[in-house]
Every structure is written in structure tokens, then in C-alpha cells.
């Protein structure tokens, strides 16, 4: 990878008058569009797209080869199951089984595409909106929903599934990923870290510190921004004046790309390239996916206060699942029987989740003291004894 000024630019002169001027001043011919995205820092002027919204394929491109059809069928399967999971989780909030649920409906291509682009031994750094990605990664959905059910914070063992706890403080995981990825490299392992973050979180300082640390230490991290257009209610225009969020990489010397986040084929193609770039030792890569949060921020939010239905409808027409299904059907890679089988699997998955979430979880008040330190301090031992006595007294009262 080079970072010479010539390598930095990759823009059509039509959309980049400044770049055109710079090229003229240097009296160098405008470089041909590079085929290796690692060789340039700026994203392409338009998001990478490999199939149209109706599933029609676009001309093949050398920079982002289409993933194998088997991978696309798997992508489809997991997206369908993922959406069914998401719908079920929202339903569980209405039944009082979850305290809250932030849906990622409409973002299935990103949720699942990210997971499919990495290995099981790679690390994923999710936010609270990535429940779908986590179940798609094979983590037990009950463990994924522990946080939102409220019987503990993180329900899964991060070290067993190479997945950090879902991060609620925005963008803080960007720096953790840089450290983890660098630490893995330091110990001779070729682990890649994949960070999911949203558009709002790119305004947080830790996003910048994370990308910068990863760049300086050449840590193998893919920063994957799902630009779903809203940070709760605040629109993208209040987060940035940049042409797009992918442009934030250039300032850190990090190659970046933007992709149509509702084009599952393009998302997987771009992320596959980004992960390969990181794993090859070229340092971090920033990907921005343009997508849309179809549901409110959470079930507790009222999205009608800040966006109108017509806007949501335009995104309904760009549904990533219908898009991939149409494409695979046209290719002869998916038929009615396969679609029905996936739908059936999704229903069974939801039914199992529903049934398991209907069981009231057991919580143990004395466990509050278990994991504050490796060994409780004398003060915690005292407090535990106090709580134990309170519980014993309450139990005795109940007995009378």
C-alpha cells in the first residue's frame, strides 16, 4: 500500500473538481481507476453495488469479485433466519420478556454479511444493535438476549465465541478492537477484528482514536459503519459534513470504501476484500454501508416524531432479502422448495427461541458480588453478608 498523493485520489473528475485541479497542477495524467482498493485511501464516489434493487445483476467488476454462489445462498439463509429472530425479539418486548430491543430490521445484509466475511477465530466487536449478527455467528440467541432480558449484562462467553460484549457506550469498542488485533499480531496470530458501529458513533472521539491507533500500529481491523441514517432521531446531516462517512478514513491513512448496504452481494464482496486486506498485514480498512433502520431505535422509541412514512416506504422497496432472493432465483440458485425450507427453518428457530424465553430466568442476588474482582474485597464480603441476612430474613417472613 502506498499513500502518495497520487494514490490517495480515485475520483471521477466530474465529482471532484478539487482533485482534478490538484492533478492538473502536478501535471500528471489522471490515474486510471485502481483495481486494488488497498492501493487508495479515498472511497469511490458512489457506493459499490453489484445487483440492482430488483435483483438484476450489474456488470461484474475486477475490484470486487462476486462471492461464490454457495456463500450467497448461505447469506440468504442467515438473513431470513436473522430477520425472523429480529421479529421474534421485538414480539418478546411486547410480551414483557425483554426489557428493550433495538431492531436491525432492514440491515440484514450488513448484519449477516459482516459475520460471513470473517472466520470463527476472528473477533467481532458488536454494538447493542447487532443481536442479529451475533445469532448469525452461531451464538445462542438466549445468551445474546440476556442483556436485553436483564438477568445479567453479557450472556455469552466472549472468549469462547470470539465476540466482545455488545457495546452500549458508543464507539468505545473501536479502540478495543485495535488493541486486540494488535495484540493478536504481536503474538503471531493472524486474527482480524471486525468492528460494527453506526453513523452516530462516528462522531465520538473513540471512533477517531480507534481508527488512528489501528492505522499507526497497522492492526488488522475492519471498521464497518452501518450508516442507517439516524442516531435515534438525529439525522446523518447532524453527524457530519463529510461527503460520506467512508471519507473519514483518509485522514488516518486508512483505505476506505462505501457500499450499498442493502445489496447483500456487494456488502459481502467489499467486506471480504477488506478482511483480506487486514489479514494480509496492510492495516485497517474502513467500510461504510448505506442502509436504513426500518424500525424505531428501539421498541420504546416513536420514529413518527422524526421521519415520515414515505421515506420508510422508499427503503421498503430496497429490501435486502427480496433483492438477494430475486437474484438467486434468476441465477437458478434458489427455487420455491429452497425458499420454503429456509422459511421453515426460520419459523422453527423463532419457535424455539419463544419457548425458551418464556421460562422465567433464575437470578441469584448473592451472585452480585461474584465478579467485581477476582476475589471479593473485605468490604464486599461484608456487604454480601448483609444481603444474605436480608434475604434470609425476607425468606423467614414469607414463611410465616
Amino acid at each position, binding site marked *: 500500500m502506498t499513500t502518495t498523493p497520487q494514490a490517495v485520489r480515485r475520483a471521477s473528475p466530474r465529482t471532484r473538481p478539487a482533485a482534478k485541479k490538484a492533478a492538473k497542477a502536478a501535471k500528471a495524467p489522471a490515474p486510471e481507476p485502481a483495481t486494488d482498493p488497498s492501493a487508495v485511501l479515498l472511497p469511490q464516489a458512489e457506493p459499490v453495488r453489484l445487483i440492482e434493487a430488483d435483483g438484476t445483476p450489474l456488470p461484474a467488476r475486477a475490484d470486487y469479485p462476486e462471492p461464490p454462489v454457495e456463500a450467497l445462498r448461505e447469506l440468504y439463509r442467515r438473513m431470513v433466519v436473522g430477520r425472523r429472530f429480529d421479529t421474534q425479539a421485538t414480539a418478546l418486548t411486547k410480551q414483557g420478556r425483554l426489557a428493550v430491543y433495538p431492531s436491525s430490521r432492514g440491515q440484514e445484509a450488513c448484519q449477516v454479511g459482516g459475520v460471513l466475511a470473517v472466520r470463527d477465530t476472528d*473477533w467481532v466487536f458488536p454494538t447493542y444493535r447487532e443481536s442479529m449478527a451475533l445469532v448469525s455467528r452461531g451464538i445462542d440467541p438466549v445468551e445474546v438476549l440476556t442483556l436485553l432480558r436483564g438477568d*445479567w*449484562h*453479557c450472556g455469552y*462467553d*466472549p*472468549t*469462547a465465541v470470539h465476540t*466482545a*460484549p455488545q457495546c452500549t*457506550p458508543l464507539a*468505545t469498542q*473501536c*479502540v*478495543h*478492537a*485495535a*488493541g*486486540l*488485533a*494488535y*495484540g*493478536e499480531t*504481536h*503474538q503471531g496470530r493472524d*486474527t482480524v*477484528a471486525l468492528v460494527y458501529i453506526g453513523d452516530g458513533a462516528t462522531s465520538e*472521539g*473513540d471512533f477517531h*482514536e*480507534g481508527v*488512528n*491507533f489501528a492505522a*499507526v*500500529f497497522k492492526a488488522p481491523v475492519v471498521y464497518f459503519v452501518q450508516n442507517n441514517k439516524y442516531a435515534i432521531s438525529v439525522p446523518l446531516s447532524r453527524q457530519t459534513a463529510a461527503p460520506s462517512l467512508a471519507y473519514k478514513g483518509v485522514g488516518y491513512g486508512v483505505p476506505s470504501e462505501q457500499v450499498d448496504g442493502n445489496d447483500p452481494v456487494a456488502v459481502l464482496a467489499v467486506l471480504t476484500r477488506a478482511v483480506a486486506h487486514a489479514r494480509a498485514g496492510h492495516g485497517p480498512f474502513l467500510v461504510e454501508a448505506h442502509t436504513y433502520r426500518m424500525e424505531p431505535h428501539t421498541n420504546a422509541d416513536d420514529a413518527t416524531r422524526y421521519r415520515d412514512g414515505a421515506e420508510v416506504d422508499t427503503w421498503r422497496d430496497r429490501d435486502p432479502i427480496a433483492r438477494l432472493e430475486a437474484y438467486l432465483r434468476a441465477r437458478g440458485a434458489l427455487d420455491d422448495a429452497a425458499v420454503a425450507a429456509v422459511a421453515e427453518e426460520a419459523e422453527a428457530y423463532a419457535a424455539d427461541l419463544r419457548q425458551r424465553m418464556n421460562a422465567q430466568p433464575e437470578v441469584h442476588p448473592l451472585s452480585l458480588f*461474584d*465478579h*467485581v*474482582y*477476582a476475589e471479593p*474485597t*473485605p*468490604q464486599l464480603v461484608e456487604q454480601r453478608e448483609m444481603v444474605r441476612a436480608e434475604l434470609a430474613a425476607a425468606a423467614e417472613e414469607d414463611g410465616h
Partner: protein
Amino acid sequence: MGATTMAKALNAALADALADDDRVLVFGEDVGRLGGVFRITDGLQARFGDKRCFDTPLAEAGIVGFAVGLAMSGLRPVVEMQFDAFAYPAFEQIASHVAKLRNRTRGALSVPMVIRVPYAGGIGGVEHHCDSSEAYYAHTPGLKVVTPATVADAYSLLREAIADPDPVVFMEPKKLYFSSAEADLPARTEPFGRAVVRRPGRDATLVAYGPAVPVALEAAEAARDEGWDLEVVDVRTIVPFDDATVAASVRRTGRCVVISEAQGFAGVGAEIAARVQERCFHALHAPVLRVSGLDIPYPAPMLEHTHLPGVDRVLDTVARLQWDDQPDPRWVAA
């Protein structure tokens, strides 16, 4: 046995930890070639290479967050915050992740690390270089908070902090960096959770930590002229706190003054005073009193002398411990 400084003892502790354990990494701002602005990391990069001791971008949240990730990968990061007040950008990382990851994951994921913070004043530093920030960390469950006052403790506590399974905020009193003492390194002193009686006495207990310990010892010496025989307890580890040693001392003496350099309101000194009062009420001949810095932003260098608790303020406070069994006139309503 030879005379050495706290700075050299800290340096030796880092060097020995790096030599003993390949997982230990030392990093931060200016800690590499320069050896740190206080030279605590002097020579470490030359000896262990720039993969083990290195400079980072100038971003404290980044440094601590990077350490979280390194700890997740199985390494043992030791980071330096250049000055107390410059650690504040890292506070979210410390409070939300460093302190909580073990708890959030039911013990599945721990992030053992040491965050070294040169703290407190008395060195003529300009603003933002002299804060006593220990209470912020001590108020955060999941962190251990340690502060040495002697050369031997500096070495021993830092080695223990690096080996500890929990994250440790290691508060280094700047004004003691170049204090010198006979110390046989590698020293091993009392473990975490143990306060130490630095000077035995019968009449009252002075409880102090970090930069206030030498002040307490000096005051105890001076108090002999007033006829008071004062005991001095060095807290050493604010978290975990050694209630037993402190309370045993106060039960013996019946009087207690808690000394901290930090501003007093809602501080560690207040916590200690409350704990002593809860445990020793019937042994006390006088209310537990506090001597602390003033409740003001840390002052400019030419005024810091008035702010810092010194021997005179300590002795004035000891004088108010109701030696004549009369109520403190300060608290009697007019």
C-alpha cells in the same frame, strides 16, 4: 542495600516485570525513547525493544482502550497517563470497560492491566498537572487503587499490580519521585489490602496515604515537642481498603486525624473518616477530624503552599482532638 529513589524503584519494577513475563507491555506518551517525562520508563525501550515498550498517539482514551484490547488478547498492558488531569479523557474507558468487563461477562473476560498515574502536587506544576484524582477511581467498583509512599513500596506494589488479576490504577505521588531511601531491590513488602503502621504512637492515629504520608510522619515528629505521641498509618492500597489495621490503631489511641492531599469534600479522606467512626465510635475520645487540600481547583504554583496540608495544619488539627475533654468550640452553636 543502597540509597535509591522512588523513580528508580518504579523503573526497576517495570524492568523486572518486562524481564520476567513476555506478556507485559509498557506504553503511553513519551515512554519510549524519552523514557517518560519523569524518566520512570528510562532505558526500557533500549533494553526490551520497541515491541515491549513503545510510544502511542497522544490520546488517553485510545491508550486505555488499546490496553483493554491487548488484555483481551492475553497480554499484560502497563500504561502511563502522563499527568493526573490528562487521564480524564480515558475516564469513560476506565469506568465503563476496564472496571466492568469482568462483571459484565460473569468473569469470562478479565482485563488485568495497570494504569500508572503520576498525581498530586507540591512540585510547582502549572494548571492541570497537579490533581489528586484518586477519589474518582476509588469510587468506581472493579478497580483497585494503590498509592505508594515509600521507595520499597513503590517497587513491591507495582510488581504486585502488574501480576494482579484485576485492573489497578497505580497512583504515583509526583513529589515523592525523587525521594530517596535505603532499599534492597527487588523489595517485597506487605501485599495489597494491608495498611502499615509507619510510626507507632499512643495518643492519636494519623491516617495518611501517598504524598500525605511524609507530612504525617513529619507532623508526628514535631508533635513530640507538644507532648503528643502520634501513630502514623500508611493506607497504601485505597482499594482494597484495610479497615482492620486502621480501626485497630484508632482503638488503641482513641483519637484519629485523616490526612489527604486531595480536596476534602466527598473524598477518600471522608470515606476513611466515616469508616473509622463506624467501627471505633466507643473507643473515640474525640470526633474523627480531617486534614485535606482546600475545596478549590488546584491552585497556581505560587499559591500551592497554602493549599497543601502541611505540618502546621496537621498539628492545629491534632490540637482540636478534645484533649481537655471539652467540645470543639468550632462546632458549638453561637
